[in-house]
């Protein structure tokens, strides 16, 4: 069974491909949805196309599936409409699958299930990364506010942080929000950060 993964994010596609290979599928191709990807896809004649449900390139892909004369058999989303739980899980995970006509559903189902699991796993990694990134930028903001307080009020680093923290507690706000307010005020007043 030839599976093509159309994906912009190298990482997500790799996570999915790894899973499929572990499960014994070996005819797997990753293709970013750019340039003449539709023509290349036609030449590949895939049995299953997996794609992020939210990908902006899906309209382009579906148009190709509608008008292509090169594809021997039509390809449509989710062959087995009776399996509502499966489709629900796929939609929630953000997986869209286009399957060639005539492919038995027992053969498609494990691929879809795997894609759903891997997409969910990827979403979790992504969320953790975003969290880490936010934490990092929060720390930068707090550091900058600290140095403003240290410069303008002659405080030690420890005291500057204590001041930020008590300010946040008194106002019922997050430390980073108080820090951001200090930076904004300092910028407006032409202070040196």
């Amino acid at each position, binding site marked *: 069974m030839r599976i093509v993964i159309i994906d912009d994010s190298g990482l997500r596609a790799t996570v999915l491909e790894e899973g499929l290979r572990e499960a014994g599928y070996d005819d797997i191709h990753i293709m970013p949805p750019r340039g003449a990807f539709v023509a290349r896809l036609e030449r590949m004649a895939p049995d299953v196309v997996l794609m992020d449900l939210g990908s902006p390139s899906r*309209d*382009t892909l579906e148009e190709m599936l509608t008008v292509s004369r090169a594809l021997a058999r039509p390809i449509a*989303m989710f062959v087995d409409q009776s399996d509502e739980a499966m489709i629900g899980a796929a939609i929630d995970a953000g997986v869209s699958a286009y399957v060639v006509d005539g492919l038995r559903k027992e053969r498609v189902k494990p691929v879809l299930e795997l894609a759903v699991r891997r997409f969910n796993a990827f979403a979790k990694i992504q969320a953790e990364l975003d969290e880490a990134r936010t934490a990092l930028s929060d720390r930068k903001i707090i550091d900058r506010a600290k140095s403003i307080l240290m410069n303008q009020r002659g405080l030690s680093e420890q005291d500057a942080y204590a001041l930020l923290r008590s300010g946040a507690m008194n106002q019922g706000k997050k430390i980073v929000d108080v820090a951001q307010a200090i930076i904004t005020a300092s910028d407006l007043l032409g202070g040196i950060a």
Partner: protein
Amino acid sequence: MTTGLRIAFLPLTDAAVLAVARERGFAEEEGLALDLVRSTSWATLRDRLVYGQVQAAQMLAPLAVAVTMGLSQQPAALAAPYKLNVNGNMLVMAGGFAAALEPDVARRIADPLGTAHDFAAAIGLWRRKPVIGVVHRFSSHAIMLRYWLGSAGVDPDRDVLLRVLPPSLMVEAMQGGEIDGFIAGEPWGSAAVETGLAEAVAIGERIWRRGVEKLLTFRQAWLEDNPDMVDRLLRALARAAAWCDDPAHHEALALLLAHPRYVDQPAELILRALSGQIVARAGEAPLANPDFLLFAREATPFPWRSQGLWIYSQLVRWGMVDHSPENAAKAAGVFRPDIFRRALAHSDVPMPGASMKLEGAVDLPLAVGSRRGELTLGPDRFFDGRVFDPDKIDMFLAGFPPLR
């Protein structure tokens, strides 16, 4: 108690009524908390609606008809009790291509018939078949483009290449040389003009003066099962639409839509369609097109069943669906004036007495029968002067040259 309602939309100026219903408290007044789900492609928006991730969606009118007729992946009966807008599209082409057209952009846009013929001649001068981006096979834009090209003897399936791309990727595709022009909803045409890569060739409002555009669409079963929520939403949208149409609010509206949560483009570009001040070529003075985009006036939101049939007639014309009484009934059935009447019965929204009308028959503003207040329909001519009588689809279709 507030009820949550999830509605999918695309980053387009004509998502305005949904955004305003949420941000200006109109939905809240009706006890609704709107969760607006931004989507990038029509396929994703369609799936979110069809598979129940959202309860409603801002949908291309022809796509709602196509999904109901089973022409776009999983068939599902959809129902549209409310039109979110009328008009709002623009066709832009690369400067090199447009050089073969009338150079005065004001005259070019004011004369779509002449420009269609110039366009046909320009195809022959271009170094290859021009590639024109459309947002979807089943979009008002694609149907309008086909209608316009067809009038000048251009076969849209033979003489040009139509490439499907979501609206927000059009400018990038022009920059990459993948397309020579595109037709899309605002602000994407204006965004392309602003880069200097493209200039306006035609605007939707001059091709069909009152062209059906985006529908508020539900799954039919959900619509039938939740009359109270549907009615509350329609009342909120009607008030939001009146707010959107008020010129005094256009600047605030442009700023609101500019937010990354909605269109994520400069407010100045978004304002052009709202105020009808269209910049057709970078650096030139804007052209006044006061009917470029309508939200509320002239009973814009009313879902005329005849408009469903007009769309159907065009799908038949281009061989996208078989002509049968069953298919025609399905297409007309997507439009639900009965729900519109029920929901807005006690509002001050003017209520047409009929559910069907001739499309393209009004030359000058026309006062028509209305159950309440004054209702004036604006001019709704097609640029080629054809009139669509929903009771005589066969006759209308016979007026077009046959497909190859």
